[in-house]
């Protein structure tokens, strides 16, 4: 298995690299100018040019690429154009933990909710409960997330005022002490994580339900029941474990979706995470930051897929890598 992982990682290197090169050229093809902020009345026309010179954009594209390649191979992705020339990895180091927190909480909530609903639907197949859950899941699955997010804010933050509408912490949270600070942080995460996970959970629930229905009809389930095991043991120990095998692969696969979902959640809830960094970098034509973001999210997705494949082998003894 180690050989397999090593091989996959080796293959990933040229893949990531190709993606970065493509990104390098594609973003430069996009209309717009990183120095556009400085092209306005009252600002000397010289400024935009001086800024471009600072960014190294006055060189021919090919030279820019060679220079970029040289520094990237040394691990230097450069400095952000739009964020006060911070090294891009500093920007990302501030943003990534926020997104990772959201992503992990969402992933967990996704699967717990999804599996729970899916199992109930399968066990009570064609009951009113099943129908209700199925329709409910479809309802949330079809809802645009940004709209759902705004509705949640209007209901829970504006009308009921139970949850905060935005931000990572309350005003003045710095003086709270670590435990209350953490609670305050979690408190601010409830709405966004709920929005992100309800949608995903609905999909997973459908998946679990199908997989569960298939397993329940297997002979070994009948055997388990015949042995006189309680229904709970049959469902949880015998059926669910096997039904979850295909679901586990979903875990790695859902990572990119959660990441892209975090994108607008961060804008709406004003979290300084990767999603917002990426969106703002694109609007500002902040080339180094866009490339570094692509690098990070690309790598995470590749790792996510690898983890899913390895997990699959770990949980299912029939699969050998």
């Amino acid at each position: 298995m180690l050989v397999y992982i090593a091989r996959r990682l080796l293959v990933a290197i040229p893949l990531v690299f190709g993606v970065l090169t493509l990104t390098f050229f594609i973003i430069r093809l996009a209309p717009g100018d990183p120095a556009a902020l400085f092209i306005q009345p009252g600002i000397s026309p010289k400024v935009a040019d001086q800024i471009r010179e600072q960014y190294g954009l006055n060189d021919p594209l090919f030279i820019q690429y060679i220079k970029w390649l040289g520094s990237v191979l040394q691990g230097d992705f450069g400095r952000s154009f739009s964020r006060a020339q911070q090294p891009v990895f500093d920007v990302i180091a501030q943003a990534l933990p926020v997104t990772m927190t959201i992503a992990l909480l969402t992933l967990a909530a996704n699967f717990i909710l999804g599996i729970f609903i899916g199992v109930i639907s399968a066990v009570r197949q064609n009951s009113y409960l099943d129908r209700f859950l199925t329709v409910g899941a479809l309802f949330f699955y079809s809802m645009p997330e940004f709209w759902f997010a705004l509705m949640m804010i209007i209901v829970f933050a504006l009308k009921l005022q139970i949850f905060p509408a935005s931000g990572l912490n309350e005003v003045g949270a710095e003086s709270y002490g670590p435990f209350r600070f953490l609670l305050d942080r979690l408190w601010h995460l409830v709405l966004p994580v709920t929005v992100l996970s309800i949608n995903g959970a609905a999909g997973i629930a459908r998946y679990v339900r199908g997989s569960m229905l298939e397993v329940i009809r297997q002979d070994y389930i009948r055997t388990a029941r015949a042995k006189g095991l309680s229904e709970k043991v049959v469902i949880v120990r015998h059926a669910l474990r096997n039904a979850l095998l295909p679901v586990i692969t979903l875990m790695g696969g859902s990572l990119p979706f959660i990441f892209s979902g975090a994108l607008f959640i961060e804008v709406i809830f004003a979290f300084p995470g990767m999603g917002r960094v990426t969106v703002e970098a694109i609007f500002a034509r902040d080339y180094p930051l866009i490339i570094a973001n692509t690098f990070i999210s690309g790598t995470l997705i590749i790792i996510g897929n690898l983890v899913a494949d390895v997990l699959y082998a770990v949980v299912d003894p029939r699969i050998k890598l």
Partner: protein
Amino acid sequence: MNRKISMKGIAVISAMVVIMFAGCSGKGGNDGVTAGDSTLVIAMLGDANYLNPVIGASVTSRNVYGLLYPGLLESEFDTTSGLLNFVALEKKLRETFTDAMPKKPGGALAKTWKMSEDHRSITYTLRSDARWNDGTPITSHDFKFAYTLYGNPLIASPRQQFLAELAGADKGEIDFDKAIETPDDTTLVFNFYKQVPEQLALFHTSLTPMPKHKWKDVPPREFRHSPLNQKPLGAGPYVLRDWQKQQQIVLASNPMCNLPKPGNIPRVMFRIVPDYTVRLAQLQTGAVDVVENIKPEDFEGLENAKAGVEIKSVGLRVYDYVGWSNIDQEAYRRDGTIKPHPLFGSAKVRRALTLAIDRQSILDGYLGEYGVVASTDISPSLKWAYNDAVLPYPYDPAEAVRLLEEEGWKPGPDGIREKDGKKFGFVLFTNAGNARRNFASVIIQQNLREIGIDCQLDVQESNVFFENLRLRKIDAWMAGWSIGLEIDPLDGWGSDLEKSRFNFTGYQNPRIDALCELAKAELNSLDARPYWLEYQEILHRDQPTTFLYWIKETQGFSRRIEGEELNILSTFYNIDDWTFSPSASVAE
């Protein structure tokens, strides 16, 4: 074995989630009072890029560093004349007649100034009791040092334009030892290469100083990423307490400040909330105190909000317009040939287009009382230059039709006007994400359809839109301008199309060039009035663009704030004088 591990993992995660929800419901019992009693919270669209006056470029940057740093002069806007006034401790450029003084005076570093007889130099006398927050006195050397930073091409300051009149600037290289003299710590002399009106001299020499002792060893190449940018040393009414990028900037009142005094409200927090709906919701719940640029459709909801919100408006600095290519952009792009645009090349046609657009309906439908139909690009707020006699064209489709017919545009078989086989049809471009312009563009499309003109609408991402505009790739568009308080429109109308970077229409009129130069050369701004009056008459007649309407900027304030004085200069003009009303902080 493996299976057990995975089940255990799930159990751990679910336990985490349970804790999370339990923790939250525990906190839900709290009374919801925030630490806001002594903190003013301002919601901002975006973060500051630099809190450094030399390179800070965004509006947020300016708002924040303006509170951290001292100024050579204070500026005020005289609403009776519409002129910018400059104030030192013991001298004013001109007496103003506004009834209330909105800002506590005494913030200027200059005691007084003297313009030389020949208008080629200005000498300031500085106060001697001003200190940077580390106790070092603020001297004339700090100003000279700052100007070398502003002028350094490696630093690329967006304020280089302020140095355009300094000695040597005409030759491309400012000699700072000649241009700025510092005979002693409290005397500061600026020398110009030409005669400069006093108004402009004051405006251009009052850039923010920088503490020389802190910054002198920072190489220009590292200026933009120096760690000193994170810890600005200023002398203003507030000091930077905390700056979490993309989240918040926290300022605390500066007890050392004598320029003129520490800020009244102990803490000011700028919170970055990118989404407009969320900013609005937070203003309604009282989580933030100030939100700028409230859209008219939200006024009603805000005025009924529990937290008590007051809408204040100020203007007029911003207008929307429909730009028409006066010249054939394609021919110009190809080889620099200037010939009239096939559709919009004639002033008569452009006048017809303006007459056909029902600007009052757009205002009634969207901005209501927060908009004024525009006649030209001189704002009615700049009373000293505004021409009352130039009235905006009325909505008169019949007259528009008559003008079009005169120009030979006759209705075709499908109702669309034609001339020499060419249909009067075009695409009106605008930038994405502006609800007001979307609204206006639909009405314009309908208005033009009624007189037989086919106008298609296209919305582009802002970056793409402005690039296309700059590259002269679009023939008709809707956009807006925010004007400066010093009138300087040549960038937008100058006949030299290479030099006039914002003359997207390609409008050329030598008289406009001459009037702008004449006005600029007047040593007293008020003497330039006749030139500006004629300028407006010409623009009105030529209609290089259809000026739509001036927009009042509307800001929402929590009712617990007292003493806020909205000013055309800035929403936060006198923020250090604001207070919280005592009754409101006890409520809830």
